[in-house]
Structures are given as structure tokens and as C-alpha cells.
């Protein structure tokens, strides 16, 4: 009887990880909200990426506008026109790019800052850890919008600046979350045992702390993107976004300024908001589904 070949420890780990992934995916699929969210998100990402194919870029140029002012939907302009005669549908499609881009990039920044601060504050403790914690707490106490408005005014109106502003004002929540997770990991005995075996900080962080923190970060990121997109929309609405780019928020700002509300030009101020709601809702649903899958405590059957 031939013996089955023994697997190396690395192969075993890989196999176990793959099994965990497929189990997680199966569970995610069972969450209807998360699935719907994922589908809707994919749709919007496709629209954003495929914008040049869906609507000609020239449609964004004010000087090349062909339609009348605030025309209702028609055969030629499915969602009517804006105050400059541009097709609202075109604006909507291209606006998706900005909203998604800013949301994702800003989240990247806030995640980076938040993770670094949270890890350091939780893992290293002592004066540095305590100081970072105080800073995080104080940052959380500052109301987001006034600070963002001020920073946006300081830095000036550009795409990069909006990303920076949102990223720099939103990291505190993540930092707090990660810090508490790292603290609970520190409580567990295996860190101490590892250190007794001579493991250095780098090893401990890479092998023990990070793998337990990453799933949490993952779920949190998705929810952060949702908030970032809402923030971008609000800041653009207040006139602080990039004036050269169209985003859903800037469309709403235009609509408000030209009185589309009072003239009842619903095709101008309803669709951008609907898009924002759909995208933010989808990110939220996916984020909640991820939390349910990755956090066993929430799995209540």
C-alpha cells in the first residue's frame, strides 16, 4: 500500500487558506444584500471604466453643447439637458468616474494613515502609543465637514486636493478600530509565546498581528468608500470640487444654482442623487456582508 505524499507546511497553509477563501465566498454568496450590492457596483464600475464607449467625451464641453437649456428627456437626450445644453446622461456617465475615483483614492489614503496609526498605537503602547491614541481621539472630536471645508479652501480646488482632504479627515475611525483589534490580539497568549521563542517585532507584526487585522480592515474599507463618496458629493455640492471635472456632486451644485428645483427640472437633480444612493448603498451592503463573513461573532443563526 503506497503512502500518500506528505505535504510541506507551506502547502498545507496554502490549502487551508484556499479552503477558507471558498468557504468565505460561499457564505458571502448566501448574503443576498451583499450579492445585490456587488452586482450593482460592478455595473457602475463598468460604466465608469467604459465611459468613452458609452458617451462621447465631447458631450462634456460646454462650447459643443447641442441641446437647449434644461430640456426635458426626449428621444435625442434620454435624460434631458442641463443649463448649458449638455446631455445629462453623458454628464452622469462621466461623473461616475470622478465619484468612484475620489471615493477609492481618498479611502486608500485614509486607510493607510489609519492603519499605520492604529497599528503603531495598539502594538507599541507606551508613550508613543498613548500619544497617538490621544491624537486619534481628538481628531474624532473634530466635526468632519467644517474641517474639510477649511482644508479644501486652503488647498484650492482640484481633484487631487479633494482626495487629500477627504483622506486626511477620515482616518481616525479606522485607526480606532484597528487599535482596539490589535490590543485584543496582544491579549492573546501566542504573541507572548512567539516573543519567548525570539521573534522580533517585524515577524510578530507580519505573521500574527496583520493576518488578524486585515479581514477587519477589508470590511471597514468598503464602508469607508461609501462615506468617502458621500463626502465628495457634499464637498462638490458646496462648490469645493474640481471645477474642470464633472461629478455627481457638481451636477447637483449646478442644478441648485440654476434653480432646477424651482423649475421642476427633475431630470437634472434627481438622477445624480439616485446614482449616489445606489453606489453608496451597494458599498454599504457589500461592507456589511463582508463583516458578517469575516467576523464570526456576527454569525448568528
Amino acid at each position, binding site marked *: 500500500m503506497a503512502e500518500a505524499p506528505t505535504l510541506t507546511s507551506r502547502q498545507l497553509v496554502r490549502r487551508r487558506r484556499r479552503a477558507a477563501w471558498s468557504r468565505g465566498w460561499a457564505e458571502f454568496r448566501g448574503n443576498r444584500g451583499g450579492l445585490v450590492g456587488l452586482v450593482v457596483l460592478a455595473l457602475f464600475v463598468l460604466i465608469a471604466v467604459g465611459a468613452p464607449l458609452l458617451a462621447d467625451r465631447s458631450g462634456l464641453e460646454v462650447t459643443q453643447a447641442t441641446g437647449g437649456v434644461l430640456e426635458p428627456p426626449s428621444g435625442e437626450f434620454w435624460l434631458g439637458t442641463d443649463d448649458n445644453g449638455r446631455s445629462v446622461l453623458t454628464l452622469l456617465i462621466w461623473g461616475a468616474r470622478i465619484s468612484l475615483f475620489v471615493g477609492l483614492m481618498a479611502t486608500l489614503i485614509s486607510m493607510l494613515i489609519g492603519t499605520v496609526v492604529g497599528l503603531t498605537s495598539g502594538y507599541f503602547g507606551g508613550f508613543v502609543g498613548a500619544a497617538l491614541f490621544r491624537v486619534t481621539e481628538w481628531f474624532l*472630536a*473634530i*466635526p468632519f465637514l*467644517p474641517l474639510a*471645508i477649511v482644508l479644501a479652501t486652503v488647498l484650492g480646488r482640484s481633484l487631487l486636493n479633494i482626495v487629500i482632504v477627504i483622506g486626511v479627515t477620515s482616518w481616525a475611525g479606522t485607526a480606532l478600530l484597528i487599535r482596539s483589534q490589535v490590543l485584543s490580539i496582544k491579549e492573546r497568549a501566542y504573541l507572548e509565546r512567539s516573543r519567548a521563542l525570539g521573534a522580533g517585532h517585524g515577524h510578530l507584526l507580519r505573521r500574527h498581528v496583520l493576518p488578524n487585522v486585515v479581514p477587519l480592515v477589508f470590511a471597514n474599507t468598503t464602508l469607508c468608500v*461609501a462615506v468617502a463618496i458621500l463626502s465628495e*458629493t457634499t464637498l462638490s455640492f458646496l462648490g469645493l470640487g474640481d471645477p474642470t471635472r464633472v461629478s455627481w456632486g457638481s451636477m447637483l451644485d449646478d442644478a*441648485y444654482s440654476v434653480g432646477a*428645483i424651482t423649475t*421642476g427640472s427633475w431630470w437634472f437633480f434627481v438622477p445624480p442623487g439616485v446614482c449616489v444612493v445606489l453606489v453608496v448603498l451597494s458599498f454599504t451592503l457589500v461592507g456589511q456582508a463582508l463583516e458578517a463573513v469575516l467576523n464570526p461573532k456576527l454569525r448568528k443563526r
Partner: protein
Amino acid sequence: MSTVAADPAAVSAEAGSGRRRRGGGYGRYAGAKVLGSLGSLAFMLVVNFFLFRVLPGDPARTLGRGRLSTPEQVAEFNATYGLDQPMLQQFWTFLKNLVHGDLGYSILYHRDVSEILLDRLWPTLLLVGSATVLAATLGVWLGIRAGWARGSTFDRFSTSTSLTLYSMPEWWLGLLLIAALSVGVGPLPGLFPTGGLHSVDADPGTLSGVLDTIWHLTLPVLTLTLAYLADYALIMRGSLVDEVGSDYLTTARAKGLRDVQVRGRHAVPNALLPTTTVVALNFGFVVAGAITVETIFSIPGLGLLTTDALAVPDYWLLQGVFLLASAGVILANLGANLIYGWLDPRVRT
């Protein structure tokens, strides 16, 4: 294995050790929280001051358009407002004045900042206050009902509505409400004013004036209530769902309590704890809502003030508003912490 008779000495020793831990718990807890808040406030003052000095634009140039053309006139302007002094000197002056309640002088409105703030404070408080109270009451009730009957039709409807409202920019909801209820849709006429706090001819002191104010505030309050409500409902539901499987609820049921009693006397008080914490963390959202909703409804409160002051930029006014907003958030956080300490005896020891 034989059973040992209860040792009276051991019993009283056990009992005594617990006794020392009681008493004065809440006082110490509250004191610690207040100190923490003061620290946050101090940090806020520093950030506040230096942040606005970094703003671009020169007040002299902006306000003195056409009038202050010569350097001497500009210098005189700067001297009057203390803008020519070194930064740290200005900060020290600021602190000294703060202690006396002097928040500076508004370049834009030519009045004391503290006066302007007081004037503009009450519309914001009225708006945000009523919206918060309404949203908290309704939201918590919705969350309890949905969380207790998880998966039911009510739950699914309530939760999906909450999620949708939560994903909406609150000001966009306001715009929709204006379009629907102020401007009117199709044949339906608008019922509410599109903005402002009072009608031009209304005297706010009289009863009809008060009713007029309420009429003006209906849509803004409705907007904010719906926006805040979603947050409360979702959080409360989540907290209650977490409690539902707990052992102490089985004990309560075993005692013969009815389902509603189990929910109200045992589950909800425990579920309120995480709710309080999360709601406290979300206070920044309350402030943001106030700013945007005031803007679209033209309510003359602190939110609209911020936008106006930014154009100059009117340093002292901006500082004052920011300070007030931050202080408000810190205070609200302190309040939430104190409430939490009162609800949960475990944090007091």
C-alpha cells in the same frame, strides 16, 4: 468527594472584598470623562487658531477693495485688527480674550463675534435639536421593533428604508422635499416655503409668528429627522440583534415574563449601551447635516454663517464658528459618555 460545610469566615471574607469596590464609582468615572473633554477642548483651541491663519487670502485686500489702496492704509487696517503682530503673540491675545468671552471682531459684519454667534445659534439649535429628539425617539423605537422581530416583514421594510436613507446625502433629500412639497409636483401645489426662517411680515414674538416659524422649519426638520433617524434605527437594531441570543434573556423568560417585558426590561437596556457609544461617534454627522441643510433652506444659522465667512476669509468669525461646533461635538460626546456610565455599571468600577 465529600462536601465541605460552608465556612462562615470564608463567606464573609468573600462578601467583604466586594464591598470595598463599590461607592463613588460614577463620580470618579464622570470626573475622568470631564477631564478628558477639557483636554480635547484645549487641543481644539490650538488647532482652531493656527488652522485659520493658514487660509489664503488677505482680509485687507478682500474687504478693502478699492478703499485701502496705499500700503499705509493697509498697514493701518492690519494694525487695527492686530494682524501685523507675530503669530504667537496673536495666539496669546486670543487666549486672553477667550477667557473674557471675547471671541474677536468680525471683519465682515462689523460686530463682535460672540454677538453674531449668539444671534445665529438659536436657529441652528432649534433645527438640530428638534430633529435629533424626533430622530432619536423614532429611530430607537424602529430599531427595537425591527431588531426584536428580525427577518420579519417589518424588519425588512424598516431596514431597507433606513439603509437607503443612510446612503442619501441629507441635502439631496432636502432638495427632493423642496421640489415635491414646496414647488409642487404636477397638479399638486407646494405646501411649504422654500426657505428662510420667517415670512417677511411675520413677527416671531407673536403666536402667529411662532406658527409661521414652525411652518418654515417643517421641511428642514423633516429632512434632518429622516437623515438622522436612519442612523439611530440601524444601530439600535444591530445592538438588539446582538443581545437576542443572550443567556440572561432565557433566565428572564424562565421567570415567566412576557415577551414584551423581556424585551423592554432586559434586552433593550443592554442594547442601548453600544447604541449610545456609536451614536456619540457619529455626532460629526449631526454638524455636517446642519451646515448643508441650512444652506439649501437658507436658514440663518451657524451653517450659513460658515459659508459666508469663508469668502473673506473672516478669521475670527470662522474661528468662533469652528470653536463652537467643536465644543458642541465635545460636549455631546461628554454627554453620551456620562449617559453610558449611568447605564452601564461595569465601567464605573
